[in-house]
């Protein structure tokens, strides 16, 4: 490439460096423009530490006696919403994932449609999905479960489609050459190859959904979030802190459980 007389070594080509520079410059311009126009009142920021200390003062001491009567059932409901919602997501995501895998369905239009469904599911935040389903099904865990399901389809479906696209094509070719009908090729050629990924995706998403289902109650979709909402509206800060502590505990336990099962399976 370079002649013997030219010993300057550059890690990147000029075009690459220019592209990188453009990205950094673009971000710097966007940042300074944002900082100048965003409506932030600095006094509020200076006041923040006082407010936070005041808030912490109201949260302490924790009203632990509130847990058995007020929080426990809602927490169990939250876990049910997370689990059932994840199962619903899988039921919905498998067909969409298959439709999105371009090595299985070779119609670009369908691939594109699947991508649109998956992106829409992921772009709309879980709280927004919760609002939608509360409007449809009324407040309560049904709206929450469907919300978690629809919100997770994008994530589960995307990863499932990627796992399908990465399978070794050899066995699939062999089964096709043996004259197997399409469903059999899928069951015996693709499915065994993606099973480990499938369970990993399920666990991963369940972990995330425990976090999400703890807050969708803020807009009425069931679970511990509804208890939190009540406590916030009534300024029972000592209860708020107990609720937050119990969410934290459950989330950490869920993560530990998932890590343990993953090690066991994979």
């Amino acid at each position, binding site marked *: 490439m370079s002649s013997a007389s030219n010993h300057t070594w550059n890690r990147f080509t000029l075009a690459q460096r220019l592209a990188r520079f453009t990205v950094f410059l673009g971000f710097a311009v966007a940042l300074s423009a*944002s900082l100048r126009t965003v409506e932030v009142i600095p006094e509020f920021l200076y006041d923040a530490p006082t407010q*936070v200390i005041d808030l912490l003062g109201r949260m302490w001491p924790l009203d632990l006696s509130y847990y058995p009567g007020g929080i426990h059932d809602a927490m169990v409901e939250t876990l*049910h919403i997370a689990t059932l919602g994840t199962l619903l997501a899988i039921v919905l995501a498998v067909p969409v994932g298959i439709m999105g895998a371009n090595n299985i369905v070779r119609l670009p239009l369908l691939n594109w449609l699947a991508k649109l469904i998956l992106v829409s599911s992921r772009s*709309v*935040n879980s*709280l927004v999905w919760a609002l939608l389903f509360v409007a449809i099904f009324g407040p309560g865990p049904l709206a929450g479960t469907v919300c978690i399901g629809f919100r997770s389809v994008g994530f589960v479906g995307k990863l499932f489609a990627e796992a399908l696209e990465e399978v070794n094509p050899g066995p699939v070719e062999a089964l096709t050459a043996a004259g197997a009908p399409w469903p059999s090729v899928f069951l015996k050629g693709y499915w065994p190859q993606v099973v480990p990924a499938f369970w990993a995706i399920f666990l991963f998403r369940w972990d995330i959904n425990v976090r999400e289902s703890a807050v969708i109650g803020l807009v009425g979709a069931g679970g511990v979030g509804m208890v939190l909402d009540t406590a916030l509206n009534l300024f029972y800060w000592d209860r708020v802190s107990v609720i*937050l502590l119990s969410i934290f505990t459950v989330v950490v336990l869920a993560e530990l459980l998932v890590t343990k099962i993953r090690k066991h399976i994979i």
Partner: protein
Amino acid sequence: MSAAVSQKYGPPFKTNWWVRAGWTLAFLYALYAANYLDVSWVRFIQGLGNGGQFLSEMVPIDFSRWKLLVENLIETIEIAIIASAFGVFFSLPIGLLAARNLMPSWVTWVFRTFIALCRSFHPVIFAILFVKAVGFGPLAGILTLIFASIGFIGKLFAEAIEEISLKPIEALRASGAPFISVILYGVLPQVLNRFIGFSSYQFDANLRNSTMVGIVGAGGIGGTLFAAFQRFDYDFLATILISIIALVMVSEFISVQIKKVFQ
């Protein structure tokens, strides 16, 4: 004679009782949980009726208030940009201080706990607390997403540092380089590319979340969305949802392009 062969070797397949039990349990659980949550077919069908009506009220979508929409979208983007910049900026030192191969254990313990705290709570909980602390408006949203970013990038960054090769660091230490130089020349070059990857991913995540924090009053398009909901203003709601999806798709496209530049 043929059947004798099969009898000699027993059943052709080993039944995987674990898998069977797993599927049966999952099925039974789904029934139990549905019952517990009072999720019934009747309610579902009723809901579908409501849903149909809901969708029909969404069309035709209402673009008459586009000015408000654009202002809100811009504020949403601004929140995401500022929060990403500060979040990334703070994640660098926090990630370094949480890396177990570089720091003494009492330091990493403190920072790992901090990161775990940031990660364990959904951003909306932070948003509520910050709205109480600094009042309604985008500042609360920015602070929320800074903490969310630290939780995500800080963790991944610390893990990336824990995976680096220690040989260059040994060499630098042996040559008597001060600690800062070891970090600058031994550690950062090995993880910078991954760090940029995490950052662009987090920007996407921040953009999505900044469309939501407004629901609890922390600025951005979420506030308008929530208001449209409460006023049953479903045609405007549809407009907002479509523009959020479009915004996220555009940002995903841009981040794919940026990743190409840095590969």
